[in-house]
């Protein structure tokens, strides 16, 4: 039970980071972006690439952070991955979705997002190969903090939870204390009223793509650190991300955080009573239950 709770919070933290960008874009642009999950894969692989680059450039960076299997080069690579994934998200919008917003309806954009996700997934497979990999081969020997048979915890997992918490607190401070945060909240709640209040919608949409992409990169890195890198990790996570966004309420950033934790905990706790093979069905059940009981999610507003 204790282990399931811990695992649930861990997975939920990763889902929360990934769902924030998804919920923002879904609410502002009013389409379900199925390619968002591929940004997690992209971010994770960008981090892998730059980890290798930094590791080759400097021997100092190959040193591991205390207690963790993460090297300094990987930590630096994650920052680069965030920026690159954010930029990639904005470029995908520029090349694909922006044009479709003008010429076609939301349904076309949903199908286009399927196409984009397939393209991104296959390009990753083409460049990095279809085999799963790890950031560090030592990762499987990561130090255990708790050897209690009821609760097995790795230092990397604590690091992931702390990182997610720090990012969420930082995001909260940005949203509630800065004009950029007010702008994002305003556009996510009511894009027309935001324009009426002098907000440049196009620039804010680009910002939302970049923020969503950056957070997806961290989520992808965290997921890969705890599991493994695979070109299909986006496909495996997409339903859980949508469940998190829907449970929290489309458009609500705080809802996405809570939704991520709920989906993570539910998926993990469900394994106590159902066989592991049924785990992928849990997010789907959560989506159905939420839409049935509370169609606008926990924090969502009817539009």
């Amino acid at each position, binding site marked *: 039970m204790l282990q399931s709770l811990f695992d649930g919070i861990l997975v939920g933290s990763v889902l929360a980071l990934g769902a924030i960008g998804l919920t923002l874009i879904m609410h502002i642009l009013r389409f379900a972006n199925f390619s968002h999950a591929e940004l997690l894969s992209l971010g994770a692989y960008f981090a892998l690439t730059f980890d290798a680059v930094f590791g080759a450039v400097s021997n100092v960076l190959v040193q591991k952070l205390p207690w963790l299997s993460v090297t300094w080069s990987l930590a630096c690579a994650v920052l680069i991955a965030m920026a690159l994934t954010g930029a990639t998200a904005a470029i995908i919008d520029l090349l694909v979705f922006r044009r479709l917003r003008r010429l076609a309806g939301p349904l076309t954009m949903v199908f286009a997002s399927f196409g984009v996700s397939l393209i991104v997934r296959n390009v990753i497979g083409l460049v990095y190969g279809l085999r799963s990999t790890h950031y560090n081969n030592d990762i499987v020997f990561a130090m255990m903090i708790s050897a209690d048979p009821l609760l097995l915890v790795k230092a990397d997992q604590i690091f992931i939870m702390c990182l997610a918490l720090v990012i969420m607190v930082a995001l909260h401070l940005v949203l*509630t204390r800065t*004009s950029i945060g*007010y*702008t994002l*909240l*305003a556009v996510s*709640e*009511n894009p*027309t*009223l935001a*324009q*009426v*209040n*002098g*907000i*440049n*919608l196009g620039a804010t949409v680009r910002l939302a793509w970049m923020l969503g992409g950056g957070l997806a990169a961290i989520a992808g890195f965290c997921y890969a650190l705890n599991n493994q890198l695979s070109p299909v990790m986006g496909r495996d996570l997409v339903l859980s991300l949508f469940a998190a966004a829907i449970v929290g309420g489309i458009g*609500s950033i705080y809802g996405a955080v809570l939704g991520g934790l709920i989906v993570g905990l539910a998926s993990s706790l469900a394994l106590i009573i159902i066989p592991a093979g049924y785990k992928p069905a849990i997010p789907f059940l959560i989506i159905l239950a939420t839409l049935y009981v509370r169609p606008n999610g926990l924090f969502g*507003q009817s539009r």
Partner: protein
Amino acid sequence: MSSVARLDVSELTAGYVAGMPIISSIDVTVGVGEIVAVIGPNGAGKSTLLKAIAGLCHIESGAIHVDGTEVTGIRTDKLTRSGIAFVPQIENIFRSMTVEQNLILAGRRCDKQASSHVEKMLSLFPLLKKTYKKRAGELSGGQRQFLALAMALVAEPGLLLLDEPTAGLAPIAGQEVLSILREIANPGVGILLVEQNAKAALGLADRAYVLADGHNQHEGEARAMLSDPVLGEIYLGGRRRGDHAAKPV
């Protein structure tokens, strides 16, 4: 105060979908510090007119000038930053944000001294002081309208476009909202007011336009319209006489 003040709309044809105009060949002017009412039956295109001026509609033809400068088709955010404020009829506040955050956000479109402007708004609308830290979604209907007005005024616009500010309000709250408009217009702010309560709007305005089926039907002094028996019967709730058709402008 922004330098923007006078609005000239000429031959404006606009709608929500290209090729399907809601309003046709509309002419409207609003002078410095003038309150101009736009009245007419439901579906006349009153709100569409305001949205078209605010850059939220597809403009087919015609021109919009502000202080002699053409602003037709200018992006809404640029237009509102240049001194035109628009208060939509519904969803005119950010419900998930506090009153303070709403005002700060709206004040950003004027200049860097937004905080001093926010103070001014709190003295103009003392009710908002008490609810300053509350979420806007928790406010009453009247308080929300005051907040929407304060958000429009915090950037010190020269021209205010108001879409049915009393809609959905209790009569007393509606009267409070309308009574503050004269106070707003006195320093020179022009107001273009769309209002369902035609009598109240004509009682407040200097001039008025009557729209029907997307066209200008009448224009003139508001008080004269209020006492016009023909208009009274057709548009102000009087008995309709079939042989008294409104005279086109």
